[in-house]
């Protein structure tokens, strides 16, 4: 809460809308001060920045210097106990038993019929202790999934852990300057712990930008202190908070999927097959048939045999008109509809007109054309642009994986 807000509340106490206002992140005071455009949206009941100053500027902080992104509203669950590993292993499609202590892995989980409920990360914090993070509330599903696994507890830690993502080429340098000795030795998807203000700061080398980056996890009481230390350390690198809009650009270049754009959560889907499977989302590599039973296994095995109906595809589109919401055709004459664009943008870093699209699998090998609508001074135009399938992410710098990473 800003000082201004606080005084406002005291003036008219009690606030009749207190209950109706969005939850404020532990970092809110600092972020609100920097959000001079008042560009707020909402995530899981938290007030959440869409952007702070300028979307493109924030995007370039990720690609050029260092930026911070508030992941406190992300859902965090501790799953602890002798049955924790088995329970998670049955729930997600990846082999959790192979996850070593101090490591993080990207996972997804599915309905009985192999449709994707959500994706997220699992942190192995101890032999029998895990943290699951994900974009949407999942407690109801976790409680269903834990039936039959008696020796474990599930704790919703969302409000008890402040999370801040620190991303960009100068992220490691900034953390070093902050005094996190040895941070440069932290390998991708590894976890390290540092003493901070008499408590513990957990750092994982993870992120959602496809770039060098870390995620910082701390108790909410220390959030502002940590912020101040981080921003003091990053001052010379031009550290800057970024919001949802810049995140969305960075993740699209990296080829990461976004809920409500690339996939519609299965448990929130009204219409048959309007949700997606991991194979359709090109996440087949997350589905491990070598491990024992996991939810959706039978359906997924069948789908692997027959092939997915759609395949999420990275497209490089000719010209510079953004293909947002475009339909994809197999011919320039637009007579055969074969897919639709889920996300699209002009990539400022790689100077390309890029998109993610759901394409009917049998048409992947053929010609692909996007029907793009755009306007020039309010007048509407249409363009049919040739699309090229890209095999690799548009943005995947070596520094994202280098250990130790270069300082800038």
């Amino acid at each position: 809460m800003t000082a201004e807000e606080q005084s406002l509340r005291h003036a008219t106490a009690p606030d009749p809308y207190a209950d109706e206002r969005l939850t404020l992140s532990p970092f809110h005071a600092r972020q609100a001060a920097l959000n001079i455009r008042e560009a707020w949206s909402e995530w899981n009941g938290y007030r959440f920045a869409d952007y702070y100053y300028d979307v493109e500027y924030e995007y370039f902080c990720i690609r050029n210097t260092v930026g911070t992104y508030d992941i406190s509203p992300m859902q965090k669950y501790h799953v602890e106990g002798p049955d924790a590993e088995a329970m998670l292993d049955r729930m997600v499609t990846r082999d959790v038993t192979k996850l070593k202590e101090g490591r993080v892995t990207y996972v997804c989980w599915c309905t009985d019929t192999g449709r994707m409920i959500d994706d997220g990360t699992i942190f192995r914090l101890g032999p029998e202790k895990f943290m699951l993070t994900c974009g949407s509330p999942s407690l109801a599903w976790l409680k269903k999934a834990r039936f039959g696994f008696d020796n474990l507890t599930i704790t919703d830690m969302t409000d008890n852990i402040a999370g801040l993502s620190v991303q960009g080429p100068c992220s490691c340098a900034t953390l070093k300057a902050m005094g996190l000795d040895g941070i440069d030795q932290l390998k991708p998807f590894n976890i390290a712990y540092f003493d901070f203000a008499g408590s513990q700061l957990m750092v994982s080398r993870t992120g959602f930008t496809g770039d060098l980056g870390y995620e910082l996890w701390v108790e909410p009481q220390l959030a502002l202190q940590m912020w101040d230390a981080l921003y003091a350390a990053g001052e010379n690198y031009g550290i800057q908070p970024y919001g949802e809009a810049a995140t969305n650009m960075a993740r699209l270049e990296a080829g990461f999927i976004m809920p409500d754009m690339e996939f519609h959560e299965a448990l929130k889907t009204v219409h048959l097959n309007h949700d997606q499977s991991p194979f359709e989302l090109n996440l087949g590599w997350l589905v491990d048939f070598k491990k024992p039973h996991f939810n959706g296994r039978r359906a997924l095995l069948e789908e692997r045999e027959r092939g997915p109906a759609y395949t999420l595809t990275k497209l490089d589109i000719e010209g510079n008109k953004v293909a947002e919401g475009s339909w994809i055709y197999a011919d320039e004459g637009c007579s055969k509809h074969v897919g639709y664009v889920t996300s699209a943008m002009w990539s400022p870093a790689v100077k390309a007109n890029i998109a993610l699209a759901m394409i009917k699998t049998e048409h992947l090998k053929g010609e692909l054309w996007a029907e793009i609508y755009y306007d020039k001074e309010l007048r509407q135009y249409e363009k049919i642009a040739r699309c090229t399938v890209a095999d690799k992410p548009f943005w995947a710098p070596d520094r994202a994986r280098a250990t130790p990473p270069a300082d800038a």
Partner: protein
Amino acid sequence: MSDYDSIIIGAGHNGLVCAAYLARAGQRVLVLEAAAEPGGLAATREFHPGFRVSVAHTLHHFSRKIVQELGLTKHGYQPGELMNTTGLSADGQHVSIKGNLVKGVSSADAEAFSEYQAMLQKFAAALEPFWMKTMPRIGKNSLKEMLTFAQVGLKLRLLGADDMREFFRVASLPIRDLMDENYDSDILKAVLSWDAVIGSTQAPRSPNNTVLSMLYRMTGESGGAHAIPAGGMAGLVNALAAAAESQGVELRYGSPVKSIAVEGDENGQRATGVVLGDGERLTAERVISATDPKRTFFDLLGARHLEIEFTNRIRRLRTDGQVAKLHLALSGLPNFSGVDQPDGRLIIAPQMDSLEFAWDDAKFGRLPEQPALEVLIPSLREPGLAPTGQHVLSAHVMYVPRSLEGGWTETAKAELQGKVMQTLAQYAPGIEDLVLHAELLTPQDLEEQWKVTGGHWHHTELAMDQMLMMRPTYEAAQHSTPIPGLFICGAGCHPGGGVMGGPGHNAAGEILR
């Protein structure tokens, strides 16, 4: 090679039926039973020296097809003489039902009863193709299986347009409405309601399930009338065991199964056998469980082998029994005022509200203020069940919650027994002086002693959302389960509970297909 073609868990009547059919088709079959004798809830046991009784105490729709195909008569099974059902009245004006005739009611009621009973029997007959066949799986079966629906549709159509429409209306009607539409006599209405609501969390005012449950129970040649087979319920159970053994089935008693063994590889998992209580492992091409769905999937298999939503659906099944059982060893024949020979079913529920209000107590986890009873003195039919001149009284008590507020303490049991005895004494004065021994089995006792979840003798409540292709739930309604090699054949399968044999019969058919 596996030890057996099929291992069946549980020697209740459905397990035995299934075993006999599989062995008849040439399979090597082993039936494993935890108890020392076959029969499950239909097993006859001594509850007091010289006095024997079974929890399930009558037969009313045991499949004639099974009797014939398995040659049960040859093995000693004789269906008993059909019983009267008498609705007791405090003033001695009892209502007595025999077949489609009723006495003790107005002539209008008597006429309506004969007519409407015949109509219901027509409906029951039209539904018959449903019961002794596996339900088709929508969208997954060939046209041939979908013909079951067509067959029933045709049978309904052959009833004529008016009767067909009447069927569609009454099938979901609360039994109370059907009774009120047809009869005046309170006792007649209550007695007929009994068969529609017994064992379930349904009361006379509950829509959707009660008439269908009644029609299910009316299936078969007796039209719903009850009987005790020669030799008591043991007569049937022993015949089934003998028939199974004559086909080469191996029956092992006192062999509780600890778990179902599952093995897996990249192509998925498969049930490969069972682990017994003593650690012995037996392998089989398939494991068939005659136990209830929750016990099968959770206790014996383990939820970790199943899908999450499937697990949840099994978990959500209504499996709490609502019936307690009272067994009395009596030093003489009790005198039910106004009843010449109490050798039929005696129902104590003066009006439909007696049932409704008893349920109102039970649904909040309380003992019924006024329990409703179905009383039988099986020793009148089968003298061997008690020493000469002495008798066994067997009573179903409704509604008795599985989870009683405050738990099933000895005090609570005594309180319930007191209420039941008080009710009995209203109709049979002096009965309390004849009692040599009383055994009260609450649903919790039934659960613990017979290993039936919730103490529910239908394993899973018979209600529309848990019937037909939803019994016990879709993806397991065709006896196969999400685990290849694991099948289910108990009362939790279509068509349902009661001593009928349909689930065992249908499961065998599905496995042999």
